[in-house]
């Protein structure tokens, strides 16, 4: 990553992967473009280079129609090899909705997605509790903060075996959970039946984040909310902060 000088601020560069069937790619692109310090660019699923990027977004949608299983085919795309390497080198990867499913299928995050408990696609605003702001994706929020993001999925019922669950908990990898308005984690607040109300997790290294709700859909009050901005602010802050080796408080000041 290029070191930023005093005079010239390098924008944080986001790559938005386009799989056949992605349909939130343009939304993610648009959301990123509303941040002064960020610059989005599309990546084709056959690309094999991620040069110069700070963060890769695997967007929502229906890659390969979600046929067979969500994300099952997309994870074999040529770009996924590059994304894996990028993550291994410490690059930031966020998978939103279908992107999360792809990360699971690719084994870059643990667990799997089952059909929603109610067997129906569900699109609505939900409350989420930020379980940890110690990630490059949630640094701009407070731990324990309740935010409102929309979900839009048919397979968001997160599942992981007992051992895996223990590991997630021990390593503080559960990043957001479905909750009620007051932040209580209740079965009623769980829209899809996911284990322990899990809505988003990260890997052990905390640089790969999968989240079912859509932060990119609520980055503008005119379309019903801006609670999702924090995710992008966090990433921008983290990248800028890492470049400057600044103290963690800078996580909260950019955007």
């Amino acid at each position, binding site marked *: 990553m290029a070191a930023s000088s005093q005079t010239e601020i390098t924008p944080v560069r986001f790559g938005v992967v386009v799989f056949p069937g992605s349909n939130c790619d343009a939304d993610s692109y648009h959301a990123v473009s509303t941040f002064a310090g960020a610059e989005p660019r599309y990546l084709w699923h056959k690309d094999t280079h991620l040069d110069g990027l700070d963060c890769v977004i695997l967007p929502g949608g229906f890659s390969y129609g979600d046929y067979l299983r969500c994300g099952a085919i997309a994870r074999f795309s040529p770009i996924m090899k590059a994304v894996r390497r990028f993550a291994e080198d410490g690059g930031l990867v966020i998978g939103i909705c279908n992107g999360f499913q792809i990360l699971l299928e690719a084994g870059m995050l643990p667990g799997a997605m089952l059909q929603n408990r109610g067997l129906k696609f569900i699109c609505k605003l939900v409350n989420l509790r930020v379980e940890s702001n110690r990630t490059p994706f949630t640094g701009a929020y407070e731990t324990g903060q309740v935010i409102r993001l929309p979900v839009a999925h048919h397979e968001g019922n997160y599942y992981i075996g007992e051992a895996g669950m223990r590991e997630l908990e021990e390593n503080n990898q559960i990043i957001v959970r479905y909750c009620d308005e007051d932040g209580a984690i209740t079965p009623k607040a769980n829209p899809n039946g996911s284990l322990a109300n899990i809505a988003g997790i990260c890997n052990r290294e905390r640089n790969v984040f999968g989240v079912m709700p*859509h932060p990119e859909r609520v980055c503008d009050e005119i379309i019903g909310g801006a609670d999702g901005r924090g995710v992008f602010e966090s990433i921008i802050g983290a990248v800028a902060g890492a470049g400057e080796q600044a103290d963690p408080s800078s996580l909260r000041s950019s955007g």
Partner: protein
Amino acid sequence: MSATSQKPEYELLGLKSHEYDAICEKLGRKPNYVELAVFSLMWSEHCGYKHSRKLLRKLPTQGELILQGPGENAGIIDIGAGQAIAMKIESHNHPSAIEPFQGAATGIGGIVRDIFAMGARPIANLDPLHFGSLQKARQRFLLDGVVSGVASYGNCMGIPTVGGEIHVEDAYEGNCLVNVMCVGLVDQDKILRARAEGPGNLVLLIGSTTGRDGIGGASVLASAEFDETAEEKRPTVQVGDPFMEKKLLEACLEMRDDGLLVALQDLGAAGISSSASEMASRGGVGIDIDISRVPLREAGMEPFEIMISESQERMLAIVTPEMKDAALAVCEKWDLDATEVGQVTDSGHFRVFQGREMIADMPVAALVDDAPAYVVEAVRPAHLAAEPLPEDHYEAPADLNGVLTDLLRSPNICSKHWVYQQYDHMVQTNNALWPGADAAVLRIKGRQSGVALVTDGNGRRCFLDPRRGARAVVAEAARNLSCAGARPVAITNCLNFGNPEKGEIYYQFQEAVEGMAEACLALETPVTGGNVSFYNESFGQAIYPNPVIGMMGIIEDVRLIGTPHFRDEGDVIMLVGGARPAVDGSEYQKIIFGEVAGRIPDVDLERERRLQLLAREAILEGIAKSAHDVSDGGLACCLAESAIIGGKGAEVDISGVWPGGRPDILIFGEAPGLVVLTMEEKNLEYFGQLALDFPTRIIGRVGGRRMVIRMNGEDRVNIPLSGADRAWRTALETMMEGR
């Protein structure tokens, strides 16, 4: 079997003998089987508009903002700044009655192709639906299947389903209505048309392989009534592949951006036959197709089967020979099959080849323009009443609180979140107003302005008076847009009727079209296109005549829009408009008295125009804190909805608003031409200046935890908001669970 096999071929294909004679005359010889099959479809009701063409000419189609009226795959409306909206509505009633999931899914697929055939990117779907009583398991199965089908296809495509409606009436029990509307956004300099031009240009078939599915599907299904033999006639059901269509969409728009397309056309009813011949007709050229090049999904397909297959997810593109390779490259990038299947000629004929051999040769004009047009002698249905019901026709119920709860629970009134939460209504991140309001409002990225969209159909009113009903439906659609702060500018329409060969149905159709035309003229919302769905009957029983209107409005500033919910305690509730509610044709009449009878009040179109102007002004001036039109369930339900969504009660007194009159009818009755606005006290004077002499009346205030409607010193309705909320919010889900 043996009896039918003695019938002549043309009759088996649904042609009348004089139609067959006309075909022979146009060709100057007897048609061969392929030609006959193609003619039978092109001259079917579905493609040929035999019983509607003449009447449709009465619709106003001109307007300053109309860039494309009827005649193309979709209408196009100027929204300024070099941009335009494409829109079209279509029915998929019959396929959905057989297989609700796939029927609805392929309905979405078809209408979406019409939009991107114009070069527009689809930005919204809407789905007006009509079913029989949800007390019946079959109807729940249909609704559930249709909603899943719309969701599955639309969600996968990444097109938000932002609106629509659900009506439940016994009249749709044997024949549900599944109409689907798609709206697209396009830069005016990128609009495509389906006009084949330039002899020597090539015809590319892009997308899915061609199979036997839906052979004669849409056209045959949409051109005949249902009866016991429907089972036998059941053609192979079409299965939708939204993933294929998503790739098709992206590839077509990429080819558009790269300037590779001379013309683009979807394959819909009658497949390659209609798309190729209609393209040729629009461009005044001929076209040659070699069916041996068409990629097939099944072995042993007959030539006529290839010609009329309704396999989904296919497009025809006309490209110049120079552009061919570039176009194929784009298709390959999107992993789509694309095959050169023919070329444009100057012959004026549609010729079909199988390799070197010519197997059909038909004048394009004969196929497309010369379909017979019929006028049926209209017969006024006996059930039409000349006068409204006398006020004392029904005994007033003692407990109006119970009436309100019953109405809030009616599937025609209750919350539809069970439906729209199954739709991805937020993708593309443009919703300035989410489902549940009077209209959907979408911002246009990069601009301050936006568009508002709505569909409206009310078969019950049209059944009681097709002309007044159609006028009312156009007015209601416009009123819904106005309540969102949008200026209505254009409509598309889907005319759902019974068998037009019957005089009474033809009467309904004629009256409805004329009524629609009157309202569109008065409200300055010209018709940009539409669809006609006849033969909506089962066992000889027709549905309610149902012109469904899809309307678009323009919003200058998406920050200034109207919303239905009450905002703050103490806000003044204002009733605007002078119409007097009636029991005739109302939800109140149907739910409480179990009847659909009488004569509905007519809409005063000039007053309607002023009413809507006033509502819009109040919103744009920032005075109106909420705006909601009075429709199903009357004033009481209008107020209750605003209260429930806003989480704030209301106290209202309607004494003296309408002189005389029975409280129950005034509270629950319906009439077009009423809107409820709320505003702060301090703005009353300014509002008065805007309203001038237009009838407006303060009827109460927002506040408290109850819904109270008083008249002549008595609480007629007084219920806790929480109860109303529960009734309204849980009704549909409860019904769908069969409880």
